[in-house]
């Protein structure tokens, strides 16, 4: 008899998303009736399809462009309805607090006056944009699109690792992974009561309509991308298609009389809402980095005049800063008078002398992260680091303590994953996507990223990560 998918699978002492989930019984049973050979065959078909569909991200090496797929693992990650409701309500709470925080720090600054967060942490932050002071954004929504990184510890508790409140990516994989599963494993999904992920584009454009400048009957929305060379270009294409809007680059837009236009075959055509997938720094060479060629000169003038909406708003980067993150439980209590539904990972802010001392004393047990980086860069994982790496980390910490935070090494949960023909436990995280116009909606599930290297805790696509379909089972 051929071995089936979960035979001999051993998650050791990690929390296993498959074996421990109250909602995974049906999936486990169906996987048990599938041979490992059949699974391998379907997995290889699915990954070939990703390549043919061009669902790829672009990597540059030796001046050549290489299209890579984000490796897709076909064994789904399952969440129960109850687990999902906890995550969903926790995210809504967090985004509500973040939007209140942003509105406050660009207006009255009660938070700083009440001493909840040190002023210089906010006002001295490189992502704080003084240009945004006193500007009112529709519905006071600064963060229209948020991707919150959530991990699970060995007890099964969900913990927020990061709030990605600038231009989070990955949602295209959520939808495409589901399409792939529907084609490769119709038998696995059949009547299992899965929450659909189809309507993300419709939700997104509705939210963008809600934040359009007042008085425009039929607002024109565009998606602003850095272009085909950007590693997330596939996602930009995906979202533009799902919303049915033009995918533009900076060179397609221009500002005249504080109004934004795009260049069309029939001349200039008005633009009202821009879902921008370009960082603040590159948006407008007149306002931010003068050398930026990706942006649109004069865009900030039009924005400040209220003639165009930008999603996300300018200046949200201060809210997902890793040092500000440490204060998020206090920020939630301050604005909402509620206890946080989702906890933070315990965080030591190295700008505080005591925290720095603790970090230096426990370096080999902690994860040290630079506060401003994304994509998993610059992280030192103490328990995995060599003597020399720890020494380098120590030197960096001493040279610029306020650039770092440290966190205990969370024993991330695992999920069964097909690796080299075997099913083995691999660490996973979860990035649900939330869309906010006048209110917040969270796409059921989210992107489950999986660290494909044995023992690795780093799930980023740039560092050997893959992804799984995330099933919220009612």
């Amino acid at each position, binding site marked *: 008899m051929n071995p089936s998918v979960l035979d001999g699978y051993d998650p050791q002492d990690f929390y296993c998303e498959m074996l421990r989930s109250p909602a995974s019984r049906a999936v486990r049973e169906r996987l048990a009736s599938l041979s490992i050979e059949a699974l391998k065959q379907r997995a290889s078909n699915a990954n070939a399809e990703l*390549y*043919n*569909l*061009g669902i790829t991200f672009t990597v540059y090496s030796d001046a050549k462009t290489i299209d890579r797929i984000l490796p897709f693992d076909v064994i789904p990650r399952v969440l129960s309805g109850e687990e999902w409701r906890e995550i969903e309500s926790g995210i809504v709470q967090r985004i509500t607090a973040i939007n209140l925080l942003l509105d406050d720090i660009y207006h009255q600054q009660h938070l700083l006056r009440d001493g909840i967060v040190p002023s210089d942490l906010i006002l001295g932050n490189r992502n704080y944009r003084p240009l945004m002071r006193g500007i009112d954004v529709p519905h006071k929504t600064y963060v229209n699109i948020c991707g919150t990184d959530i991990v699970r510890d060995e007890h099964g508790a969900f913990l927020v690792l990061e709030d990605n409140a600038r231009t989070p990516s990955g949602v295209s994989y959520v939808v495409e992974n589901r399409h792939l599963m529907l084609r490769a494993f119709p038998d696995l999904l059949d009547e299992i009561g899965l929450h659909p992920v189809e309507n993300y584009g419709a939700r997104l454009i509705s939210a963008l309509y809600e934040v359009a400048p007042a008085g425009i009957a039929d607002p*024109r929305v565009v998606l602003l991308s850095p272009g*085909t060379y950007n590693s997330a*270009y596939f996602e930009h*294409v995906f979202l*533009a*298609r799902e919303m*049915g*809007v*033009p*995918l*533009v*680059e900076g*060179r*397609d837009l221009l500002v005249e009389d504080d109004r934004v236009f*795009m*260049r*069309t*075959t*029939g*001349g200039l*055509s008005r633009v009202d809402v821009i879902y921008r997938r370009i960082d603040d720094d590159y948006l407008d060479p007149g306002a931010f980095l003068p050398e930026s060629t990706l942006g649109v000169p004069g865009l900030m003038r039009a924005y400040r005049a209220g003639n165009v909406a930008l999603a996300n708003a300018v200046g949200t980067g201060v809210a997902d800063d890793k040092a500000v993150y440490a204060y998020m439980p206090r920020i939630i209590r301050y604005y909402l008078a509620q206890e946080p539904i989702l906890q933070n990972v315990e965080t030591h802010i190295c700008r505080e002398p005591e925290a720095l001392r603790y970090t230096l004393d426990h370096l080999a047990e902690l994860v040290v992260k630079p506060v401003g980086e994304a994509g998993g860069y610059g992280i030192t994982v103490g328990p995995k680091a060599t003597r020399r790496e720890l020494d380098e980390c120590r030197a960096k910490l001493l040279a610029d303590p306020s650039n770092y935070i440290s966190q205990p090494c969370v024993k991330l949960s695992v999920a069964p994953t097909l690796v080299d023909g075997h099913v083995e436990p691999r660490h996973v995280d979860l990035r649900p996507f939330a869309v906010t116009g006048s209110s917040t909606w969270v796409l059921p599930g989210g992107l489950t990223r999986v660290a494909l290297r044995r023992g690795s805790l780093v799930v980023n696509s740039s560092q050997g990560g893959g992804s799984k379909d995330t099933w919220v089972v009612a």
Partner: protein
Amino acid sequence: MPDVLLARYADCIFWLARYVERAENLARILDVNETFSRDGRGGQNWRSIVQLNSDEKRFFAKHDTASVHSVVNFYVIDNDNPTSILSAICNARENARTLRPLISTEMWVQLNMFYNHLLGLCAEDLAPGRLGALFATIKEACQTHTGITEGTFFRDQGWYFYQIGRYIERADQTTRLLDIKYHLLLPSVADVGSPADVSQWNALLRSAAGYHAFRRLHAASTTPARVAGFLLLNPAFPRSAHHCVREVGQLLGEVKSRYALRRGNDAAEELDRLQALLGTLDVSTILSRGLHEFLDTIQRQLIAVTRELSVAFFGYIPEELQVQAATPQ
């Protein structure tokens, strides 16, 4: 938002169509040459392909002689050669990638797989016995693209610019083919009426997929003048310069009126001139005045139309155009 089209998208879709059309024409020429060049003129025939795009300098920097091996290598899989099929499909795919929000997923997937297939070709695939199958695959992939586009591409402005690009390229390719082959094949006294001669003219017609239609019109005799007249002026032959130019004229008129595009009158004027050239002269007049000069005029006129379209619709600034025309995206 079907009522507006980004200028940059119009440019990309125009060139996407041109590159695929170019690849198909090149595959046709190589295919026919491979099949019908087994005569004393073989070497000369391969050399004529190098002249088609005025590639002599670049070609002979890499290869000593124009043989089936060197020419097929240069024009199928050489990615340093901007006029190779691989380069054309690479450019078509890059444009398609930019255009993904506009074109159908099927169009993108097919071009992506076609490109990946070409990338995977190796020297073995170009071995003499396998060339026929290779060219058939390439032609078929280009035609599949055309068919998928016809069946899935939303009929808004983009469709018009796609078709305009395709017909301009096709007209250009037909004139180039005729220009090179006509002079190569003009009979010397000794050759007149010999079997080899007729088979070469037939090969020329086959390159342009016109052999059977030509037979239906001129069953009994194949003369150089008739072949030239057919390829240039026949209004019903889908690759004739006359047919292609007439299509472009109609498409341009339609897209302008349907979408109320104010610009593009200069392009229309250049097209009128072209139509006048192709619609009023008969082939004997053209031959007596000099075929090469005539074809050259047509080609220059097609470049002028492209230039005016680029300025009117694609967002080019006239002063920049010299550079841009030489390096289309």
